[in-house]
């Protein structure tokens, strides 16, 4: 049988990052095909290329043997491709019916909407999921009033209302309950029986084995293989995802640095930390130690850092710094207590794009230098900012230039630098090298090592497993908001990180 979908040589570059570097995917009619890979392997980008929300730099896509040009979501729809992502495209104020038919509202003459037909169409699409709505189909309720799992189901129904030949499900099960997952899987199996190709991505490996026929594994934007899942075990998948490449720089971080003596006073102790997205997280980090946070992205790593910085609503648990409780209620309180956060989204959370580099650097620490906590001395602020520019090697024109004029790596150094001026005792870094070039990456690594050497507690979330192996003394692997595994020293390898992220028991990993 000729393949329904053939993608070959797909390349996509975002700034300095090659997200896809010749990825390929071949799948046939009536198949559930998994797309697997570690963080940053390019699976989401490949999904989006197929759905038309990302236009690749080069590459060929053939659907049913014919070359397909997908320049946008409309093209994808016309070719019979529909996609569902973890992030919803539901409009909360519209009813479920309106959401399902959005973009293909049935119309009568002169463009008047045919409400009855719309309702019938939505009912048909949702009927397959009836078991997920015990109270009956909520056709006329505002979609925003549904629970997150139900909204996700509506999203899938919306995709199915388009009668696709190819359905992309990218982490579409993340917010579903067990029963809802079962309903969805039944629908997917029906679709398979009727000849639809389903491309499936999930961080839950058990779901992949339960549902999928074959899997294509991506690594660093390249396809490394396609396997029959019935004839493959988890260890083989991990081997494909990580590869046999030797560790790049030899010694792990713990060996490169004198490991903090076991007897040193525990500096940061976290007990039973629970928020909307975290479940009972506890650990201890000593001064001078780098604690890595691993796992697939979005498993609660950012939430943990925000919670420690007082920026997430903590429902239970506490954090002690040198035995004294940290205020987890406001970022201002956390900052005063000596905690610093370099957030994951630099543009939205970390910097003031329109403001001068000077102010961006001064802001977190200026109250220390101000007279009466109010009056700033221009010379003192300049000296402070300049000292950071030199210490971190930030390449700038003038301190008065807006920070938006800098390159990504230099912007990130400004965000880090504003905290170093505050001499923090705990530094929380949320994927600090995301989207920065290789040279700046190495410089940021040097800053992180320098902080640990100075006796600062460093907690580093990274979507890059290699970064975790190079920098961390210990790694907590998170899965769905809880600590799934703790790796230390020699056990921090990319293989163990990927295995932990997929929640395979340590014994099974090769």
């Amino acid at each position, binding site marked *: 049988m000729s393949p329904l979908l053939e993608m070959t040589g797909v390349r996509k570059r975002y700034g300095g990052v090659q997200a896809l570097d010749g990825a390929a995917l071949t799948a046939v009619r009536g198949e559930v095909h998994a797309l697997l890979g570690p963080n940053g392997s390019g699976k989401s980008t490949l999904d989006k290329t197929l759905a038309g929300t990302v236009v690749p730099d080069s590459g060929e896509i053939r659907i049913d043997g014919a070359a397909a040009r997908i320049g946008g979501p409309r093209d994808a729809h016309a070719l019979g491709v529909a996609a569902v992502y973890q992030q919803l495209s539901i409009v909360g104020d519209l009813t479920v019916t309106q959401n399902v038919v959005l973009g293909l509202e049935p119309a009568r003459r002169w463009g008047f909407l045919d409400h009855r037909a719309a309702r019938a169409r939505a009912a048909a699409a949702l009927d397959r999921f009836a078991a997920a709505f015990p109270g009956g189909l909520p056709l006329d309720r505002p979609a925003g009033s549904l629970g997150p799992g139900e909204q996700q189901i509506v999203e899938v129904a919306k995709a199915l209302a388009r009668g696709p030949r190819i359905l992309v499900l990218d982490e579409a099960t993340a917010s579903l309950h067990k029963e809802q997952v079962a309903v969805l899987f039944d629908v997917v199996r029906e679709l398979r029986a009727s000849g639809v190709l389903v491309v499936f991505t999930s961080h839950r490996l058990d779901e992949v084995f339960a549902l999928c026929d074959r899997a294509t594994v991506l690594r660093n934007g390249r396809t490394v293989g396609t396997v029959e899942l019935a004839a493959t075990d988890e260890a083989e998948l991990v081997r494909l995802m990580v590869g046999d490449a030797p560790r790049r720089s030899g010694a792990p971080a713990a060996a490169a640095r004198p490991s903090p003596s076991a007897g040193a006073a525990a500096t940061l102790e976290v007990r039973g930390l629970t928020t909307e997205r975290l479940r009972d997280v506890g650990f201890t980090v000593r001064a001078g130690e780098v604690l890595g946070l691993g796992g697939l992205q979005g498993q609660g790593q950012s939430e943990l850092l925000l919670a420690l910085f007082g920026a997430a609503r903590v429902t239970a648990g506490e954090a002690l710094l040198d035995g004294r409780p940290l205020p987890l209620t406001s970022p201002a309180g956390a*900052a005063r207590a000596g905690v610093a956060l370099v957030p994951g989204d630099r543009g939205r959370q970390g910097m003031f794009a329109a403001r001068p580099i000077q102010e961006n650097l001064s802001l977190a620490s200026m109250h220390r230098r101000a007279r009466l906590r109010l009056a*700033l001395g221009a010379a003192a602020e300049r000296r402070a900012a300049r000292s950071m520019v030199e210490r971190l090697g*930030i390449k700038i024109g003038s301190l008065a230039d807006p920070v938006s004029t800098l390159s990504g790596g230099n912007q990130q150094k400004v965000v880090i630098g504003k905290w170093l001026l505050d001499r923090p005792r705990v530094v929380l870094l949320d994927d600090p090298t995301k989207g920065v070039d290789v040279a700046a990456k190495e410089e940021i690594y040097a800053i992180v090592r320098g902080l640990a050497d100075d006796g600062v507690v460093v907690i580093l979330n990274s979507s890059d497993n290699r970064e975790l192996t190079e920098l961390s003394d210990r790694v907590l692997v998170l899965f769905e908001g809880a600590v799934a595994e703790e790796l230390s020293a020699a056990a921090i390898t990319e293989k163990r990180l990927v295995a932990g992220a997929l929640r395979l028991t340590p014994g099974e990993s090769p």
Partner: protein
Amino acid sequence: MSAPSLEAPRRVLAWRPGPVALAGAVAVALVIAGEIVSPGFAGYGQLVNLMRVAAFLGVIAIGQTIVIIAGGGGVDLSVGKVATFAAIIGSRVMAGEDGDLVPAVALALLVSAAIGLVNGLGVTLLRIPPFVMTLGMIGVVQGLILAYTGGRASGQAAPALTSLVNGRVIFDLPGLLFLWLLLGLLAVWLLRRTTFGWNLFAVGANRTAAELTGVRVNRTLILAYVLSATFAGLAGILLLGYTESVFLDLADQYMLPSVAAVVIGGTLLAGGVGGYAGTAVGAIVLTVLSGLLTTLDIGGAGRTVVNGVVLLVLLSLYGRQRRLRS
């Protein structure tokens, strides 16, 4: 790590005039145009007079600048009413006596600050949009004025206040202009050389990032509204010194011009970018324009149209400049 970075050579950019320079040029052009159509318009005495009128708007617009820089749709529509209320309280308490000047001014400013505090609490804690909150406050203050005066303003400015505002100091310039200069310098210092000012710009430029940098965002916003109402109250007191007696809508008409002066001065309505120097120039532009229209004997309808057109032309110029620079 690369070599310690010294300052890279400054980028050589063709200088493009910023909003402040553009607005200044417009002010000068208006004065010249006035002199051409009506010789004597640019005479010394006439210009001093225009500056004196601009001063009241300039002082009210200090607070408006602060609130608009704070971003998030920040605007204080109640400044005119608050200024009126402050003048009414001041005139009644001082009742033409120099001895009661200080307590009268203190009470007027205290009441103004309290109104600003309520605005700030409404905007932060109750999350009422600033536009709605301060619009509603106009009604509240109007009610307070009626209750306080019973519909008839009474009292009179103390002679000391009048001579402070109107008395000629040097170069035959009234004291008011020196007071404006002083308050203007205070505003510039507050915005550019204090932790409050830098926090304010940070909150306006990116509220989430400000929160995550440990800035106490709500405290900064509340203080912005308190300052706005206080400067408005101060302008009301100065206006009282100028007019000597009050009426029930003394400063009401400053509401929209105060916003226009800020915008003409190049402060972004979106917040996070701007400053007081521009606002001061904006106040002068608006005043000169209005003087010119009076000289030309253009009626109310025509004036409104011309005012609007000038504002639109300036704003479109600023937008163009920003695009050229980026």
